[in-house]
Each structure stands twice: as C-alpha cells, then as structure tokens.
C-alpha cells in the first residue's frame, strides 16, 4: 500500500500539489483528516463570474442574462456564509467582472460546450482532464477541470483558458497558477494554455512557466509526500509536520479549532 492509498487519496489536483508544497498543515487537515475546506465569498465571486461568462461565450446568451444567472449562482453559494464579511462587497464586483471578462474572451470566438461527467451527474458539465503521475511503485491521477476550451480560435491553435478574478493584476503568474497551467498543458498536448486575469480595473492574459520543469518538480514533490504519508496515520503526521501556531490557512473559527485539536496550537 502506498502513502496515498494509506490515506484514501485516490487522485490529486493542482490545489493538492500546491498544498503539498506550500501548506503541509492544510494538506493533512483537509486531505488526511478529511475536513472540508470551503472557499470564501471571493472564490464564490470568481465562480459566479466564470458561470456568467460561460453563458455568453459557450451558450450565446446576452450580457444581461449572464449577469442575472451569475447572481443566482452566487446568492445560492453564499446563502449560508453568515460570518463572511465580504459577501456583499464581492457581489458588487460580479457585474463588472463579467463585462470585462467577456471583452477579454472576444478574440477567441465560441468556446466548446462542456460535457456532463457520467460518474458525477449531479455536478454541472465541465471539461475534465487527467494526467497520471507514474513511478515504478505507485501511480496517482491528477485531475483538473478546464474553464474554457476553444477548439478553433482565430489563431489556429486550440486554446484552453482559465479565468482568474483578482483584486490586482499580476505581472507574472504565481507559482501556484503556473503549476495548474502546467498540468493542463501536459494533459492536453497541442493546446495553448492561457490564464486571463480580470480585476475591476483591467485584464491581462499570461502563460508563464516552463511546463516540463514544473511537472518534474511536482513529481518530485509528490514522491516526497508519498513517503511522508507512509510514515503513519493522520494523527501521527499532524504530530510531526512543521507547523506555525499562526498558520494563515487556519483563519476561521472552525479551522482555529482544528489547529488546536489536531496540531496542538
């Protein structure tokens, strides 16, 4: 039994690898102790803007219809986030985000309609991709969901675009986003993979990172984690993983309680 199997981890993702590299405490809390790690209203805002833009570039709806649809999605997602102080301010950014995002997507034409995953019919249709991290001793599929796929853009090169809504436009993609991009690029050879960043002020399209190098580094990180996970059960790993008592990932009441209960801080 390999380390991932020992902790009932049957697949990974870009966020899992990012946690393995940057947030080992969160990795253990979320993926070994199996605690939910819900996103905040900023994440819900991003999902709502993406859903709205999808209405336009995939399904040909009007901007007005897209905005109404996005509000519906957002309001449902934040309905129980009673302690999130940013629910209203994030809601106010949705309309502008959709308008700017739609403009940024114009050069790519019509996006491919996502398909329903038969294994998860309850989820909305998505473009699922998979790439296997394979060693002689274990194999772990990394799964991702593509935001937008343009099979025939004017550039002639099939293009995948991931949408990021963000407060401030970056000059270079973060390492975390570069890893996500590398997984998509390696899983879909022959496709350009770009990230469009949308802020209230402007948009930018980036495609940073040396994909083979990043994939190699991610594999090394996963090999290290497989060994680490094989050292013991979740309680044991929590007792030895280097942790900070003020780890910024443990920033809600429930997570602070988790930090105290599982990690002793």
């Amino acid at each position: 039994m390999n380390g991932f199997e020992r902790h009932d981890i049957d697949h990974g993702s870009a966020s899992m690898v990012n946690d393995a590299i940057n947030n080992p405490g969160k990795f253990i809390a979320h993926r070994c102790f199996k605690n939910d790690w819900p996103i905040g209203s900023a994440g819900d805002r991003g999902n709502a803007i993406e859903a709205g833009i999808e209405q336009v570039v995939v399904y040909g709806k009007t901007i007005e219809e897209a905005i109404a649809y996005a509000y519906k999605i957002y309001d449902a997602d934040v309905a129980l986030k009673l302690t999130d102080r940013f629910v209203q301010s994030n809601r106010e950014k949705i309309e502008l985000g959709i308008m700017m995002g739609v403009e940024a997507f114009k050069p790519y034409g019509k996006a491919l309609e996502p398909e329903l995953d038969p294994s998860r019919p309850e989820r909305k249709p998505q473009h699922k991709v998979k790439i296997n991290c394979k060693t002689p001793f274990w194999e772990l599929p990394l799964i991702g969901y593509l935001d937008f796929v343009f099979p025939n853009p004017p550039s002639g090169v099939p293009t995948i675009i991931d949408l990021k809504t963000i407060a401030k436009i970056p000059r270079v993609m973060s390492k975390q986003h570069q890893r996500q991009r590398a997984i998509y690029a390696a899983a879909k050879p022959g496709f350009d993979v770009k990230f469009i960043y949308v802020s209230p002020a402007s948009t930018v399209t980036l495609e940073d990172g040396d994909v083979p190098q990043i994939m190699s580094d991610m594999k090394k990180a996963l090999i290290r984690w497989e060994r680490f996970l094989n050292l013991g059960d979740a309680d044991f790993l929590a007792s030895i993983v280097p942790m900070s008592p003020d780890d910024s990932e443990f920033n809600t009441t429930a997570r602070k309680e988790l930090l105290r209960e599982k990690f002793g801080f």
Partner: protein
Amino acid sequence: MGLGLINNEESSDGGGAFFKYMANQGYYTFDGEELDDDFAFVIDHTTVETGWIRFVPPVDFSHLTALGVDNGANPEPGTGKGEGERSPYSLGFKIRVYSKKIDGVKHLMSNSYMAKLGYEPLFDKIFAEAKNNAGKMPVVSFDLDRNKDTKKPGRQAHKNGPSTNWEPLMKIVKWVDPPADLAVAETPKAEVVTPSTDGSEDPEF
C-alpha cells in the same frame, strides 16, 4: 522483518552467486562478499519489472510484469498489521544488471522499503535521462557525495527501534553502450513513460 531487506532474492542467471542489496548493512554483496562503496554497475532499464513479490517461502515471482502494466491486486492481502497477519507479498522490482565484479549479468530484485526508497528516485532520473540517451544504458553507484561526512556516505540511515536500515542514495555515473551480455533481453521490454499525444489514453509524467 520490519524495514529490513528480505535476503532471499533470486539474483543470478541460472543459479550461482547472488547479487543483493543488504539494507540492514548498507552495502551490496555478491556471493556473500561485501562490495566496495564505489562499486558501479550497468542497469538494463528497458527490462525493469515490477509487481507483487513474495520472498517468504514458498517464494513467488510470478506476478512481475513490465513497467506500464497494471500490477493488479495483492495476491494474498493481509488480515491485519500484527505478526502473521501481514501479507507475505509486497510490491517490488526486478532489474537486470551487469558488472564484471559480479561475473556478468545478474538480477537485482527487492520488495524492501529501503531499496524501493532508494531506487524509486533513481528510476525517475533514469527514465528522464533516457530520452536523451537512446540506445544506451545507465551506470549507477552509491552517490558518495551525499552524506559524505557520515559513517556511510551514499546511504541514508533509517532508525527503527534498536536497529538501523540504510536507504541507498543512488546516482547515475554515466550512460554507456549496452554490454554485449545485456543485449539479449529475456523479459518483456518495459514501456518507457512518455506522454500520450493521441488522446486515446491518459498521459503520464
């Protein structure tokens, strides 16, 4: 047996002396004799096999398959973690190796945790570099620059209660043309891991 290497490896072609990695000692042996720390040997990476191996009698090597083939389920899963409850099988590997110091071609086979810890990153390096070394085979040895100020350079100690086992820290010394004795493959050619481009199956890395 804890993390120690199980010392019943079948390692020779057609009988004769055994070539083994002794995890509890931290060195390779041939015919029971310790080999020097700078001992280097050729690995035929094109015929690596992995699978469920049983060294506890009755030994069973029948589940080994070429790389890229699903290892399948443990033929005899354990019933618990206590003495006598663990599965007699563990996933392991078998490779053909060559050196004049071990009288030519031998098999190195192990399912021990220490050997796997050491050989897993070595295989990664080998398969990464193989693309630029077509037709050649790697010469490998302990990486004596690692842990060089310790009692056993090129090895990593793992304490387990009163005993210590040694993970081999291996490196690729160079790539060479295959020795003539290794030219005839006796096992299925391994599938060297490369990304699929036709979309017919999930790519790998």
